[in-house]
């Protein structure tokens, strides 16, 4: 009964979506407020109905109702509750339901909080948002219905792919989807703006926070995926430039660019046309990510819907929204009024540079991801575009970006004073140069480029701190005044500084791990001791162990540093029974300086085992950096939320740069 109620709610949501797509847009066209007014209740209803459907499916999972095909295929009565819940989106049908639920959530947010939006804009936005939801609801109802039933009812479910039974991966999809789908807001606003032929203050004020929220979720989602790959795949790496990773990374990059150009648009009403294009492109990349992962074009853990019919359907959705959006853009964008003008060396100019570099970087990732697929479909040749390509194309684009990054926030709007900005960054620059010397002194053997990359990270962090200090007039006013100013600084300023510092932290982590990772593969007999980064690792033997749905062999490793015992690691090789899969669980010792990472290999005969040892220096900084970026985003967002309708940095909109007093 609950299942069928959920199913009926899904059908109703589909119909409400049709209404929401047609009636408000029609009303906006003929200027009838009552018709436009249907948009809000429709959006709220759609969200409510999808909540109901999603709750019904979740309930079926929680009580293990195997009369639902989807539950039978992806759950098991003995799974822990948390994985029964995460199993709802751990499969194709359920994850599509989550996808439309988040779409509806964003639509409902426009309806609930958009009272200060122009009525026609709001109606058009809701209409476009509904058209996206409609496409996916149709997809669900026609090809991937999670409410299909089974009769007779099987006694037990088939269980969830053991790789997905992991905390990081359980909550990776909702974050990722919130990010992907969040960009649909920017898309809907862009299309609505193009339909109306104008964008105004309210347009930009709405697009930026929503893009920011989506960007934050995506940051966390990608970071979780990378963390999972690090500890689960057992290669000691944290990013593989795998097409599935790239599929989520491209919208993130484009979203980052969008975020920055939306700032320009909000503050200065400049870059309108470009921002709209970016909004369309960002969501297009999200759709492409969904298509690549879902259609079975790529094979991966995520590709649980290897079904040509579904792939073609998603391809059609993607073509419609990308092609339609770009065509509308080509047709309508010339009629948009251009906004404020600015000098090349200004805050706007800095953000344009940011956009150019980031979109170019997105392009290189896009080429690296799609080229092998295109080549394979044309002549069947399988080539692999791996880290060397991306290191040669992506990284060189990031260097000027990071070099220029600290200047941006210190330049004035419209016309900036680069010399003044340089003066303010003097200390950060000196610290960063000093860090080169320090790193060289410690790591004198290492790759000679690495200290410079570390310095780049230090430079970005220093720049972020300098900005805060400059705004607080440190060194000019007395201490009490500086503290007062620091307290009073708008939270969006803190948000910028924190997020940028997060980038710096991440750069340091990436550099240290890539440059100074040590790796040894050796065959160890019980009692043998290996040495790695100051640790002594003694292999004491292996032991079998039975898990609930797997058997494993664990290798026991005593880790000590000189005389002091540090810890005991137990890397293992697991063999799951249903579905039969072998996984390796790394033993990881986390320390300030870096991770000791031990992987058990194969048995080498007479008690000896091959063992892989890694030391990943400062690797935690990578994920710490993303968390800091998330916090920065949250700061910026909270500023927006508490003071609705009040852009904070209006004082920087002044036409002449303020000299440092």
């Amino acid at each position, binding site marked *: 009964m609950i299942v069928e*109620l959920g199913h009926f709610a899904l059908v109703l949501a589909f119909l409400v979506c049709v209404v929401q797509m047609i009636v408000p847009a029609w009303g906006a066209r003929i200027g*009838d407020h009552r018709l436009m007014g249907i948009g809000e209740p429709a959006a709220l209803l759609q969200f409510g109905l999808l909540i109901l459907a999603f709750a019904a499916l979740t309930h079926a999972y929680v009580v*293990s109702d195997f009369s639902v095909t989807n539950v039978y295929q992806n759950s098991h009565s003995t799974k822990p509750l948390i994985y029964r819940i995460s199993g709802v989106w751990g499969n194709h049908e359920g994850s599509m339901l989550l996808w439309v639920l988040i779409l509806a959530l964003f639509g409902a947010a426009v309806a609930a909080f958009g009272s200060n*939006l122009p009525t026609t804009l709001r109606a058009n936005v809701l209409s476009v948002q509904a058209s996206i939801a409609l496409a996916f609801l149709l997809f669900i109802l026609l090809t991937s219905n999670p409410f299909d*039933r089974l*009769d007779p009812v099987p006694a*037990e479910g088939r269980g969830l792919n053991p790789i997905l039974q992991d905390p990081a991966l359980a909550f990776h999809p909702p974050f990722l989807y919130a990010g992907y789908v969040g960009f649909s807001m920017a898309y809907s606003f862009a299309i609505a703006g193009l339909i109306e032929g104008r964008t*105004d203050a309210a347009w930009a004020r709405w697009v930026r926070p929503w893009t920011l929220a989506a960007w934050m979720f995506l940051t966390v989602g990608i970071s979780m995926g990378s963390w999972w790959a690090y500890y689960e795949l057992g290669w000691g790496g944290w990013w593989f430039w795998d097409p599935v990773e790239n599929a989520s990374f491209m919208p993130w990059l484009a979203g980052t660019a969008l975020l920055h150009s939306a700032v320009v648009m909000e503050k200065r009403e400049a870059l309108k046309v470009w921002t709209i294009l970016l909004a369309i492109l960002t969501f297009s990349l999200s759709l492409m990510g969904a298509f690549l992962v879902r259609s079975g074009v790529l094979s991966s853990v995520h590709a649980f819907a290897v079904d040509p019919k579904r792939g073609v359907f998603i391809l059609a959705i993607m073509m419609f929204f990308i092609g339609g959006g770009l065509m509308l853009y080509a047709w309508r964008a010339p009629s948009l009024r251009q906004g404020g003008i600015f000098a090349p060396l200004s805050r706007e100019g800095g953000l344009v540079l940011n956009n150019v570099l980031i979109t170019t970087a997105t392009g290189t990732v896009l080429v690296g991801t799609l080229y092998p697929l295109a080549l394979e479909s044309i002549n069947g040749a399988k080539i692999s575009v791996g880290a060397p390509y991306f290191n040669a194309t992506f990284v060189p684009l990031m260097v000027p970006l990071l070099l220029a990054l600290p200047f941006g926030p210190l330049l004035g709007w419209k016309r900036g004073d680069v010399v003044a900005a340089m003066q303010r960054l003097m200390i950060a620059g000196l610290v960063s140069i000093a860090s080169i010397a320090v790193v060289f002194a410690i790591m004198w053997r290492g790759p000679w480029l690495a200290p410079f990359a570390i310095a780049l990270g230090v430079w970005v962090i220093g720049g972020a701190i300098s900005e805060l200090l400059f705004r607080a007039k440190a060194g000019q006013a007395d201490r009490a005044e500086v503290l007062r100013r620091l307290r009073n600084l708008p939270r969006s300023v803190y948000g910028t500084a924190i997020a940028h510092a997060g980038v710096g932290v991440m750069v340091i982590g990436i550099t240290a791990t890539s440059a100074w990772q040590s790796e040894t593969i050796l065959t160890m007999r019980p009692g043998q001791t290996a040495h790695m980064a100051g640790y002594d690792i003694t292999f004491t033997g292996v032991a079998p162990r039975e898990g609930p749905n797997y058997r494993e062999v664990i290798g026991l490793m005593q880790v000590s540093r000189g005389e002091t015992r540090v810890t005991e690691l137990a890397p293992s090789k697991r063999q799951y029974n249903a579905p039969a899969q072998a996984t390796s669980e790394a033993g990881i010792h986390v320390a300030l300086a870096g991770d000791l990472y031990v992987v058990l290999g194969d048995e080498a005969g007479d008690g000896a085992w091959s063992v892989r040892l890694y030391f990943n220096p400062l690797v935690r900084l990578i994920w710490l950096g993303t968390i800091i970026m998330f916090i920065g985003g949250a700061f910026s967002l909270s500023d927006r939320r508490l003071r609705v309708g009040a852009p904070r940095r209006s*004082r920087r*909109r002044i036409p002449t740069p303020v000299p440092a007093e």
Partner: protein
Amino acid sequence: MLLWVGFALLTAVVVGVLLRPLLAGASSADPGAQSLASNDPTAVASAAVYRDQLAEIEAERARGLIAEAEAEAARVEIARRLLAASEGAKVRTSAPARTDVRMVGLVLASALPLLAVVVYLAIGTPGQQGQPFAARAPDGTGPGVEQLVAQVEARLRAQPEDGRGWDVIAPVYLRMGRYNEAADAFGRALRLVGESPERLAGLAEAHVLANDGMVTEIARTSYERLRALAPERMEPRFWLAVAAEQDGRSEEAAKAYAQLLTEGSAAAPWRPTVAERWRAVRRKLGLPTEPVPDGMAEAKPTSIAPALAREDVRAIQQLPEDERKRVIEEMVNGLDRRLAENGQDLDGWQRLIRAYTVLGRRDDALAALERARSALAAETTALEALTTLARTLGLSS
């Protein structure tokens, strides 16, 4: 019934909420119209944004974050935009059309529930109750196989060292097509209970089936073990030959298949399969694929009486030509009589048909084939074997 009440309530709520703006707005006045002379909502909203920004600047000035001069400049900028926004708005202002909203409301209120029911009935399953795992009685209306399996599974989870349980469930898994689980269960049973031909055969078979016919390392070692343990069994020899073929050792595989064909019973159901594999391997090796080994054996008269002991065969062969022919004729006729009394003997029929062919009595062979077919009409495997035999002997038209 309760379900449909739920559907009706849900639909009613949806239609009610959806139609409210239509019903309420009989005399819809633009809420923003009072505040600004223009009727254009866009201008109203923009004005609101700009007003907020002005207030914000005032607040920042009050907190001492910006200087008076900066605040003034910002105010000028915002005023400029406000002006630009209202100019743009004037161009667009138009009288809103009055649509017949009652019509729209009526269409929505009738079409929505109707379509919902139609779509739902097309894809939904209203008759089926939910069946939460906990609520399902294990002793309901006679447990099915799956139910029993689930019970055994539950017990085995509690006591994973119960070898008998694994032994019981393993062949069930195999029959259900859950090959990986079957392999796992056979493996555990072997470890916990001990080695037996059945378990070894099951483990190997599960591995082969789970890997789409690939004889894996585990399957190969199991079959080798099984061959040592039960030399009379045919399947380890066959699968080891397949393994040899898959490893690229074609000649070895061909030899093993040929041996199986010559040594195995002529009526064995696996014969066509093995013959097919033998031909495939020979083809790969570039060797002639005809005649199939059992055909080679037929050239010798011994093959007409495989039931005879070897000594008897040798004795018959040592008889003079006429004598030998007479003895054989006698044996064949005896066989014919026996089969006429009791036709349920595929082996016998095959021997008889072969014998008639070898003796050159083609008409009798064809008649025997017909009789065999009618006698064994109920057994499809037997009929298949007869057809194969007829083909190899050139009896099929």
